[in-house]
């Protein structure tokens, strides 16, 4: 005799590939609605302060001297800097969002393991998180563009393309950093080394604040491999309406290849770590 009668229940189907990733992104959105205040400082205020310090403050120092005009092609330093700061802010946020939160998903809060216990796959969890980071960067970038416009740093509608480029660059970096974070078992000094030896040099040596030809010749190759340099060149061309089609195609290809490679690596790594 059965102790309890079990009523028949409709069994839900496993979600499709894209829908699974969207569900994961929805999870992050639900969390964010509750905790968005925590990210205001890093995603909105921080870039704003950089804009004021360099675009306005430093700009006051150099505008009107011939030296800056030769570097910026004659436009105000603020106008020249703004699209690059947009890209820099996206890449910085992307790097940060892909380190501790990812390790936490595996290790501290273990949210990824909770998701993996449902029909969601490791690849969907990775792509969902990556998509979420992209959406968030786009949104905070859009706010940033509005702020830049308030300070008179927008010259053409091309800045909308700059915003898309910044989001793409952010996602390329996020995919690679997420992959790295997913290989980390014990935070130790892995992330601080990543920030100090990769992220910070990248933000300093990618032509954000000055053209890279002003750097010592030995340092210049750092910029060529930096996704941020490619993003900066693209975003700046768009904002200043100064396209060079061949170069632009090269920069775009670089970012797309990085995103493809990063996505491939991170989805595999997530799948392996969640179902070893």
């Amino acid at each position, binding site marked *: 005799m059965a102790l309890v009668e079990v009523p028949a229940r409709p069994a839900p189907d496993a979600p499709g590939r894209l829908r699974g990733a969207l569900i994961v992104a929805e999870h992050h959105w639900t969390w964010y609605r509750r905790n968005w205040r925590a990210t*205001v*400082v890093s995603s909105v205020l921080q870039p704003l302060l950089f804009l004021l310090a360099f675009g306005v403050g430093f700009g*006051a120092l150099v505008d009107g001297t011939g*030296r800056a005009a030769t*570097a910026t092609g004659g436009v105000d330093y603020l106008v020249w800097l703004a699209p690059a700061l947009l890209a820099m802010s996206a890449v910085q946020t992307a790097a940060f969002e892909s380190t501790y939160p990812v390790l936490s998903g595996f290790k501290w809060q273990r949210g990824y393991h909770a998701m993996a216990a449902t029909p969601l796959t490791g690849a969907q969890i990775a792509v969902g998180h990556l998509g979420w980071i992209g959406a968030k960067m786009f949104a905070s970038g859009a706010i940033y563009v509005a702020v830049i416009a308030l300070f008179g740093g927008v010259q053409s509608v091309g800045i909308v393309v700059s915003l898309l480029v910044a989001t793409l660059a952010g996602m390329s970096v996020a995919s690679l950093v997420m992959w790295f974070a997913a290989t980390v078992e014990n935070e130790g000094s892995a992330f601080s080394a990543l920030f100090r030896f990769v992220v910070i040099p990248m933000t300093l040596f990618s032509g954000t604040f000055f053209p890279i030809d002003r750097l010592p010749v030995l340092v210049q190759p750092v910029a060529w491999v930096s996704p941020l340099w490619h993003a900066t060149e693209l975003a700046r061309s768009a904002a200043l309406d100064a396209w060079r089609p061949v170069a632009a195609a090269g920069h775009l290809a670089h970012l797309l290849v990085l995103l493809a490679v990063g996505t491939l690596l991170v989805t595999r790594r997530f799948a392996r770590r969640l179902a070893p």
Partner: protein
Amino acid sequence: MTSPTTPGMPAPPQVPPILRMLPAGGYAGRSRMLLLRSATASRRTWMAFVSGFFEPVFYLIAMGQGLGSLVGELPGPGGEMISYAAFIAPGLLAASAMNGAVFDSTYNVFFKLKYARLYDAMLATPLGPVDIALGEIGWALIRGGLYATGFLSVMAAFGLLTSPWALLALPAALVVAFAFAAIGMAATSFMRSWQDFDLVTLAILPMFLFATTFYPLSVYPRWLQLVVGCLPLFHAVELMRALTTGAVHLGLLGHLAYFLVMIALGITVAARRLDVLLLK
């Protein structure tokens, strides 16, 4: 009846008179054991330790060279024209003393306090809250001193030190670091969760960007100059810039006094608050 004595166990040292005003049992005179602990721990995380040296150097190369190409020369504190790199290097030295000290005394201390529960373990021994506060600040200073020495060597190698007064920049950096560590630790004792650390960023980042690290005070309108003139990092930058360029004058003692007040204030608040926080 006599209690059995443990071999090798010394009697707790006498409390120095100045610390008698603190709550009884707060100080065992063994804060150097925390230094030993930190030194042992950093052997395993040497990468993070070493990487701290590079950050200001990267800034110096990028900003000094790159931004310098847009600026050319600037009037230094003595009025003479100096290169942009020579202008920002002392600013970066001051900022790195601040950043390191604040990081050590806020994030690191908060983590050990709330998550690792490390101080609970220490308080089960004869150590008291004052040992902990002094030990942690001491470690932040040792670390800051090493970074400052490294950075000053880099400045010397780039030919950015033009006066023997620059030797005093090292002790000055230690005073600045001590002041920020003391205030940082006092602030940490009021923190409730990680969310509150946004306030630390909100205090540190604007100072780094606006307290004349990257350009002179003269770019600001008059009212803003007065505001910036109140910031602690401004005083640190003035002190460093005067020492590394050799434009030394008696007014520098005013900057020094600023930091001595910060130290006294920070230590007093931190010791009292830690006592309340740890010995519930």
